[in-house]
């Protein structure tokens, strides 16, 4: 075992009002406040109920396929010539991404609350597919809001959701991407709150969503920590994950939060580069990425000087969002986690590298984490370890990648 001392910071977050330091909270129309109160109560009682936890764990094992493997990326490690690289294979979870962990947890919670109508938003479509899957499994009605721009670039996932019995509702307002899909999902929820649960897909939104999503995703880090000890005999030196809203990142970071000095690295979408303004890197651009309130939570938000939310850009639909989960803003402030970005080009190059060296087609989102790994590993000693959260598989991205690479693999 390495020399991993327990640290006293960060303290247990969030507090009772849903704050992670100065980030988080609950900024929603009054109509939704009672529903959030009900959700907090249901979540707390479920997490203390052995029957709920047993059913959840049973579905994770027999339906999702957990634990997902930890793969030693031997050829990639040799190629880079530095740190040994391990991949946490959330791409092998049912539906092809980590999103199913949260979708199943929340769908079970909705069932427990007697809410049989589910609304969800989706960007890349992975959360929408996971929500549609969980609803099919539990016999719940599912409506997924998706920006029409995202529908065009993620066609296979639209069909998958429809096959699973969900209604996919195109969103034509604003930038017609994830941000606008969340607006529409919230409007639906406000209107139908008595019968409907909003199955939010990332570690953002009003309290208790960031907490609930973290808890449902924390299985990633709990498993990976155990697997590292079993397979490598020690914990990693560095943990790397991509950060859109930040659910896969918080899911793997959480188990390592008290393991100082493990570096926790979040990778945002650098799009065409920070200077171009065409990106979704909330922490990388102080001119536009500032604390603000979007979709019910206070965090870092890409905005103009007047507080209007900026349109974002990334080749990866799942990272193409203007705000980041509040706990990431807090971890960054504490310097417990560090955040960087990878551009479209770097992510596409990493995508190809992982395909060729490991026989794994990663999601474009996850390729951002791989890109950062490729930058860091060569400078690290051979006996050091990087753990990468491979949050999803890339089948859904083939059209995008073919277009980006001009048909040349």
């Amino acid at each position: 075992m390495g020399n991993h001392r327990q640290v006293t910071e960060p303290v247990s977050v969030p507090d009772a009002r849903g704050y992670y330091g100065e980030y988080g909270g609950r900024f929603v129309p009054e109509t939704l406040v009672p529903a959030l109160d009900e959700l907090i109560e249901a979540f707390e009682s479920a997490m203390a109920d052995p029957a709920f936890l047993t059913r959840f764990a049973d579905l994770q094992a027999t339906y999702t396929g957990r634990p997902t493997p930890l793969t030693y990326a031997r050829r990639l490690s040799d190629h880079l010539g530095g740190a040994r690289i391990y991949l946490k294979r959330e791409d092998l979870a049912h539906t092809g991404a980590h999103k199913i962990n949260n979708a199943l947890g929340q769908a079970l919670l909705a069932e427990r609350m007697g809410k049989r109508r589910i609304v969800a938003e989706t960007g890349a479509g992975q959360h929408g597919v996971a929500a549609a899957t969980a609803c099919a499994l539990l016999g719940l009605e599912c409506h997924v809001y998706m920006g029409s721009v995202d529908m065009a670039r993620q066609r296979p996932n639209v069909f998958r959701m429809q096959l699973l019995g969900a209604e996919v509702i195109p969103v034509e307002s604003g930038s017609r991407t994830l941000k606008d899909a969340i607006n529409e999902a919230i409007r639906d929820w406000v209107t139908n709150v008595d019968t409907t649960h909003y199955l939010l897909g990332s570690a953002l939104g009003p309290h208790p969503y960031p907490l609930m999503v973290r808890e449902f995703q924390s299985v990633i880090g709990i498993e990976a920590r155990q697997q590292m000890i079993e397979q490598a005999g020690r914990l990693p030196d560095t943990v790397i994950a991509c950060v859109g809203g930040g659910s896969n990142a918080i899911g793997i970071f959480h188990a390592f939060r008290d393991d100082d000095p493990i570096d926790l690295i979040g990778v945002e979408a650098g799009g065409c580069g920070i200077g171009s303004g065409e990106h979704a890197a909330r922490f990388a651009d102080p001119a536009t990425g500032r604390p603000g309130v979007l979709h019910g939570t206070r965090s870092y938000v890409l905005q103009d000087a007047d507080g209007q939310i900026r349109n974002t850009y990334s080749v990866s639909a799942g990272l193409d969002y203007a705000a980041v989960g509040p706990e990431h803003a807090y971890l960054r402030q504490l310097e417990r986690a560090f955040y960087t970005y990878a551009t479209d080009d770097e992510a596409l190059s990493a995508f190809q590298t992982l395909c060729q060296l490991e026989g794994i087609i990663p999601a474009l989102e996850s390729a951002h984490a791989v890109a950062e790994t490729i930058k860091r590993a060569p400078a690290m000693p051979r006996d050091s370890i990087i753990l990468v959260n491979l949050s999803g598989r890339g089948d859904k991205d083939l059209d995008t990648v073919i277009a980006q690479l001009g048909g040349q693999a």
Partner: protein
Amino acid sequence: MNHTTYATGLDALAAMFTRAKAAGRAAFLPYFPVGFPTYDESLDIIEAMAAAGADGFEIGVPFSDPLADGPIIQAATQVALENGVTVQRCLDAVRELRSRGVHQPMLLMGYLNPLLAYGPDAFAEAARSAGADGVIVPDLPPEEASLVGDACARHGLALTAFLAPTSNAQRVALVAERATGFIYVVSVTGVTGARSALPPGLEDFIARVRAQTDKPLVLGFGISQPEQARRVNPLVDGFIVGSALVKAGQSGIHSVRDLAASLRAALDD
């Protein structure tokens, strides 16, 4: 009555409710966003509604992500943003309306993020100095209200708070304690927008709130026709009409003025 007669926005709003009550009716507060269809036309429309008998105004500050609004107000505020309307421009609009002699209370209605970006204290100071009387922030529940509320209190602005049909007795008590100026009562669970009928449980909901507070109640969401105005007139201290007026704004200033006049006239029946 000149606007400057009142030391604070709270006084101006209290006087508005007193006058309406003395006339045996509810106050009529139209909503209209600055910058739709254009900046100049929005000011002309608000001025015309003032002349048509509006008792006060909710002046819409556009936001890129108006998640409590239905399609009509979403589209109008999007146009306003494309027309270059900023928070500062909305403050200019209030000042300009005052200089044109619009004396009714004005509340700025906007989402939280642009107000935070401006700075709550700077915003409250500038709003009061421009002639505004209050602020309405739909994504600011009472637990978080001090973010903007402290600045509003320092500068004599009201900060309303919302109640919805989903609010239980505990929420009513909290909102009644925190709201200043009036309580904005949302008639339905949903977003802004005209509905063909008011919800059946409305009287019971209002009675439930009345039993817990004597602050003025202003009803909003879903009121679009004179017939609906007649029904809510005896129930509440005021009511807001938004989407229906904004929709009329698509057909020009005369349509808005005529609808506003008919809504106002319905209160004297």
